[in-house]
C-alpha cells in the first residue's frame, strides 16, 4: 500500500517537475524543477531497494550536475530570454502521438519468468555492499573506463573553458604571436 501511494506520488511529481523543465520559458524554473525531479527520482530508487543508486543520484545530480549548471547559468545571461519559436500544431500532435505510441508499446509486459538473476541481490546484505561487490569484480573494467571518461570530460571541460582558447592559432597568420 505504501509502495503504491509512494509510487503514484513520486510519479506525479517527477512528471510534473520534468514537464515544467521542458516547457517553461524561465531557465531558472527549469533548472529548479529539474533538480527537484531528480531528487524525487532518487526517492524512487530507494523505493526500488536501490539505496546506493539513490545516494549517487542525489550526490551526482543535485550535487554535481545541478551545481555545474548553476555556475554555468551565472556565466550566461539568463535574463536574456531565448525566443522559442512556436512549433506547429501538426508537429505537436505528431510528437504526442508518437509518445503515446511509445508508451503503449512499453505497457507490454517485458519481463521473462525464466530469467535467473546473474548477479543476484543478496538478502540481508546492504545494497552498497552488494553493488560494490559486483562493481569491483564484474564491472571493474567499465568502472575504470568510466574513470577515464570522466578524466576526458574533465580535460575537455577545462580546455574548452580555458583562456588558451581565446587566441586562435588556427586563424592568425604564422608570424603573428
Amino acid at each position: 500500500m505504501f509502495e503504491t501511494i509512494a509510487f503514484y506520488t513520486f510519479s506525479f511529481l517527477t512528471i510534473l517537475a520534468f514537464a515544467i523543465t521542458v516547457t517553461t520559458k524561465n531557465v531558472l524554473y527549469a533548472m529548479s524543477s529539474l533538480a527537484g525531479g531528480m531528487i524525487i527520482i532518487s526517492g524512487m530508487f530507494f523505493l526500488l531497494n536501490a539505496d546506493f543508486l539513490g545516494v549517487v543520484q542525489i550526490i551526482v545530480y543535485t550535487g554535481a550536475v545541478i551545481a555545474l549548471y548553476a555556475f554555468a547559468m551565472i556565466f550566461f545571461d539568463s535574463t536574456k530570454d531565448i525566443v522559442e519559436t512556436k512549433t506547429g500544431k501538426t508537429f505537436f500532435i505528431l510528437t504526442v502521438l508518437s509518445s503515446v505510441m511509445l508508451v503503449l508499446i512499453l505497457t507490454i509486459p517485458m519481463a521473462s519468468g525464466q530469467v535467473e538473476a546473474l548477479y543476484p541481490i543478496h538478502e540481508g546484505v546492504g545494497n552498497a555492499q552488494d553493488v560494490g561487490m559486483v562493481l569491483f569484480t564484474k564491472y571493474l573494467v567499465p568502472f575504470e573506463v568510466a574513470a577515464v571518461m570522466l578524466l576526458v570530460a574533465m580535460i575537455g571541460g577545462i580546455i574548452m573553458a580555458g583562456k588558451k582558447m581565446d587566441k586562435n592559432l588556427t586563424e592568425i597568420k604564422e608570424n603573428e604571436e
Partner: protein
Amino acid sequence: MSEETLLYIALFSPIVSSLFAALFGTVPKRVFVGVVTSGLIGLSFLSSLALFIHLQSGSGVVHVQMFDWIMAGDFSVPFGFLVDEVTVTMMLVVSLVSTAVHIYSIGYMEHDKGFNRFFSYLSAFVFSMMFLVMSDNFLGLFIGWEGVGLCSWLLIGFWYHKHSAGWAANEAFIMNRIADLGMLLGIFLIYWTYGSVQYDVVFSAVSEADGEILTWIAIFLFIGAMGKSAQFPLHTWLADAMEGPTPVSALIHAATMVTAGVYLVIRANELFALTPEVGLFIASLGAFVAMFAATMALVNRDIKRIIAYSTLSQLGYMFVAAGLGAYWIALFHLVTHAFFKALLFLGAGNVMHAMNDELNIMKMGGMRKVMGWTAILMLLASLALAGIYPFAGFFSKDKILEVAFDGHYYILWATLWITAGLTAFYSFRVVMLVFFGKERYKDFGFHPHEAHDYMIWAMVPLAVLAVIAGFFEHQFVAFVSNVLPVYEFSEHTHHMVGQLILVTSAIAITGIAIAVFSNMFREGVFSSAFRNTILFKLFDNQYYIPKIYEEVITKPYMELSKVFWEKVDMKIVDASVDGIANILRSTGENTRGMQSGNLSYMLRWMAGGMMLILLFAIVYTYSDVLLNILQGVAK
C-alpha cells in the same frame, strides 16, 4: 602468248592505264597521258581480239583463278576469270568502244583542267567493266558492278563545280545502290542455296533448288539489273547522268555500263530459263520501258537527254528479248546498240563541242554545213537506231519483235512496234533539228566548227560497225551458241518473218518521214496546240516522276532525317538520358534544404526518423490485427 596472259592483259591494262593517268592527276594537262591510256586500252582491245580468235578456233573457254579473295566459314570466293563466247563478245564491245572513246576524248577534253584525271577515271571504268564481264562468279561480277557504279559517279560528277553534276552523280550512285542491294541479296540467297557463288557450281546445280527460291533469286538479281540498266522505276538517274562529259555518256551510259543488267540476265540464263514467270515480267517491263522512254524522248529538247531516253528505250528492247528467253538476240542487240549509240553520243559530243556545250536542239539547225562528217556519222547512227535496212539496228531489233510475236505476246509486240516508229521519229527529229533547216545558232552567237580529225577517225570504226554488224548475225549465233541456248522460232513465225519485217520497217520509215517532213514545214516539229495538251506536258516532264520522287522520297527522307535528329534523337533519346541526370540533380537541389543547418531540425529528423521506423515495426508486428481492423471497417 598464252591465253592466260592475254586475259590478264585484257583485264589489267586498263587499270594500269588508270593508275598511270592518276599519277598525273593533279598536274596540268599532259597530252601523252591521253595517248598512253588510249594505247593501253587499245592493247586491251587487241588482247580481247586475240582471245576472240582463240575461242573462234574452238579451243575452249579460258578460265583462271588468281587467288582467294574472301574465305570465311564455308564461304569462299576467289578472284577467278572466265572467258567464254559471251564474255569475249562483251569484252570486244567494251574495249573497242572504250578505245574509240579514249581517243575521242583526247580531243574532246583538250581544254579541260582535269584532263589527266579524266583519263584516269575513264580507264578505271574500263577496268571495272572488264572485271564485271570476265568474272567467273557472282561476287566478282558484283565487284565490277560496284566499280562501274563508282566510276560512273566520278565521271558524272566530273565537272564537280557544277551543282547539277554533283547532284546527278549522287542520284545515279544512290539509285544504283538501291538496286545493288537486291543484287547482294540475290548473291546471299545463291550462296545459302548452292553453297557457292561460282557460276559453274551454281549453274550446274541450278535446277536442284526449290522453285520458289529460284524465283526469289531471279527477282533479286533482276532488281540489281534494273538499277544498272535504269529500268523503271529506277530510270531517272540515266537522263540526269548526262551532266557528265559526253564521251562518258557514250561509253558508260550508252554502250557498256547500262547494258550490264542485260549481261547479267544473259549470264544467268540457266537460272532465268527456269523461272519463266520472272522472264515474262522482265519482258513486260522492258516493253513498257521501251515505250515509256521513247515518249519522253519525243518531246525533249536536250540533245543528250533524247539520246539517253533512246538508250533507255533500247535497253527495254534488250530486256524483252532476254526475258523471253532469246538470250543471244538480247546480246546481239546489245552489241549493235553499243556501236550505234556510242556513235550517236560521240556525234552529239561533236555538236556540243562546236556549240560551246549548248544542248538545246532548238538553238541549233543547219549545222551540216559546218560539220559535215559529224552529220554523216550521226545520220548513219540514227538510221541504225531507227532500224532501217541494212544497218545493224535493223537486224537485231527486228529479231526482238519476232521473238515477241513468236511467243504470242502480241501486246508486247505491238508496244515494241509502236515504239519502233517513235524511235525513228525522235531520232530523225534530232537529226533534222540539228543538221538541217534554218541555222538558228547564228541568232545565239555561236560559231560552230568541225571536230579534230582524229576524233572523227575514232568514230569511224564505230560507224562502220553500226552499218555492217548486222550481217554477221549468223556467225554470231554460231559463236555464242556454245554458251547460250539458241532460240528456236516456231514454224508459224518463220512464215510470217517477211511480213513482220515489212510492217516494222514501214512504221520506222513512217516515223522518219514524219520527222523529216514536219520539220520542213514547221521548225521544232510540234504544233503549239499539241504543246498544250496534257500528253505533251506528261512527256515533257518525264511523267512527273522526278518530281514525284522529289516529293515522295527525297524531301520526306530529308524531313524525316531532321525529325529523327532534332526530335527523336535529341529530344527523346538523349533527353531521357539527360533527364535521368537532371532528375537526380534536381532531387538533390530540392531536398538539400533538409540539411537546413538548424540543430532543432536535425534532432527532429533523428527522433522523427526513429519514430517512423518504429511505426513500421508496429505495422509489421500487428499486421494481422491491423488487417482485421481494416476489414472490419470495410464491412
